[in-house]
């Protein structure tokens, strides 16, 4: 009861000073859809990404075979359109006699799972730390930002690699390593926003009434940063997917028998003479996904901030 009066006061203060949180959700969504329809970049990106997502989601149903099943007769089976291939194994078989198509579909799940978990983790940790740093200021801010600068000094993959060097290979260490390497960008964005909001009058008003800091953070900082965080997240999903593929390629990420596109390419590399299709299938899919996300991310970036001349 007291809460609702409080939020009314804070809310009306916000209106009074003419600040905008964000425009009414319906209006924003309408604008977004319209811009999307007009952008070939955005549409192409969305299409590609949608395709991959659909495959991943439908993997259990779509996959004609068990990805882990090894059948001697399927070893180095060429893809359906080549001589010796069959339509039962559209993309052929690998060196252990596993169906490549099924592995690619299930691999999609791995990649997406890793990407989603990592980005969510990084976004959450980063946003929280950023909000705290921005709002608390002082030593806390200093420490967090120094840590961020330190981590930021290194390229993403290198950092992830170094963390994995310490923690050892494996799915969860990879997730952890990637998250640690990624949170910094979110922290910066959110901190910037927190600092901006902090200076606004209604925050002072709220504080003078005794609204606790965390409520202000949650109630005002968070809604304002969501668009920027979302754009960042979308762009970084591509980064994570490629990083996961690279780490798995190196043998450091996902461990067998879980299929991963990167691992498949690594396995295929040894058999380029015998079965080049082992590499082409997963390679093409990685490319598709990455291009799709980059295109869509570009479109998103233009939409949110059309000022940047490209």
């Amino acid at each position, binding site marked *: 009861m007291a809460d609702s009066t409080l939020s009314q006061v804070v809310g009306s203060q916000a209106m009074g000073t003419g600040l905008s949180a964000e425009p009414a959700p319906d209006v924003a969504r309408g604008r977004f859809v319209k811009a999307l329809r007009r952008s070939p970049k955005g549409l192409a990106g969305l299409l590609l990404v949608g395709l991959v997502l659909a495959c991943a989601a439908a993997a259990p149903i779509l996959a004609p075979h068990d990805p882990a099943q090894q059948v001697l007769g399927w070893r180095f089976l060429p893809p359906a359109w080549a001589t010796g291939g069959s339509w039962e194994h559209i993309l052929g078989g690998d060196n252990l006699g596993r169906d490549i198509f099924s592995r690619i579909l299930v691999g999609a799940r791995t990649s997406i799972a890793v990407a989603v978990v990592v980005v969510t983790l990084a976004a959450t940790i980063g946003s929280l730390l950023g909000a705290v740093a921005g709002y608390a200021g002082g030593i806390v801010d200093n420490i967090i930002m120094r840590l961020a600068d*330190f981590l930021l*000094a*290194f*390229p*993403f*993959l*290198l950092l992830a*690699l*170094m963390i*994995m*060097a*310490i*923690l*050892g*290979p494996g799915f969860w260490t990879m997730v952890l390593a990637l998250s640690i390497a990624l949170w910094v960008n979110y922290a910066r964005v959110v901190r910037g926003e927190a600092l901006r909001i902090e200076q606004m009058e209604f925050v002072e008003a709220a504080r003078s009434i005794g609204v606790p800091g965390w409520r202000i953070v949650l109630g005002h900082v968070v809604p304002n940063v969501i668009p920027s965080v979302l754009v960042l997240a979308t762009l970084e999903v*591509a980064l994570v997917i*490629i990083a996961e*593929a*690279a780490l798995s*390629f*190196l*043998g*450091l990420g996902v461990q067998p028998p879980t299929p991963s596109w*990167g691992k498949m*390419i690594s396995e*295929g*590399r040894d058999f*380029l*003479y015998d079965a*080049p299709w082992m*590499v*082409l299938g997963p*390679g093409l899919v*990685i*490319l598709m996904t*990455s*291009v799709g*996300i*980059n*295109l869509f991310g570009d479109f998103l970036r233009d939409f949110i901030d059309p000022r940047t*001349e*490209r």
Partner: protein
Amino acid sequence: MLPLIIKRIGYALIIIAGIAFVVSAMTKLVPGDPVDVMAAGNPGMTEADKARLRSQLGLDRSMMDQYVSYLGNALQGDLGTSLRQRVPTAQLILERLPATAELTLWSMVLALLVAVPIGVVTALRRDSPVDTAGTVVAVLGVSTPSFLLGVLLILLFSVQLGWLPASGYKGSVIAAIPRAIVEGRFDLLWQKARYFLLPSVSLAFGLMAVNARLIRSAMIETIRQDYVQFARAKGVPPRTVVLRHALRNAIIPVITMIGLQLGNLLSGAIVAETVFAWPGIGRLSVQAITTRDYPLVQATVLITAVLFVAMNLIVDLLYHVIDPRMRHG
């Protein structure tokens, strides 16, 4: 300008000290008993070995103690001994450093050599088919992971066409240049250079795309500037206007980015070296990690980090020399 240099160097040293700390404390950070993990990766370790290892790794000492002793040893050139290969890690690293260094260098050179003309042309011919083609290449460049490109290049040029070797390293090209000039035998250079070609291209492609975009937007911005118009008003021929007036200014942001990009190259090199079986530090690090060879991991991580920080420092200082506006603070 001197206080600036000192400040930068100081900051770099702090970063390196921090990394050294993390690296030295690495064994403590590993979940579980690191010695058991190492034993699992290295069959043939006796209990005595394990005990010795434990004290060697300083697992019985505090983090601070470990740090100090590690640092002390490192400054004397002792970075531990590889478990797998039983030789000093420093030696392994030194052996492999030139290969990585040269690969990085050639990749950067290649990337810039291609990026500059593409960037300039797409800027001058905005919104033309040339520009669209450039954009497509740029998107591909940014989206294609270097390991994938490397494997595809091998598939095309080694497997299908047989033109270039799929892996291996036959020595430094730079070191071979003097002899080639003296003896007039450039086929000697090619012997070595052909091994560099595919790995460099796989690394350079992404970098090239990024730089081409960078140069394009910098050029577009620069061309709009009054001083470019003024140069035209003076009757300076267009090619000179582009090169001397526009590009000279447009290249400044690119040079700022080079430090960042060298770092990306380094991390890309780790992957490329694995694809092409290149005997460099990158491949060494990966091997170290997979075999849980902790001393080697510590050493490679530290050295990679130091290299990285040093590179950035040099480029940073170089930037101050190139832009006259920066020279005066």
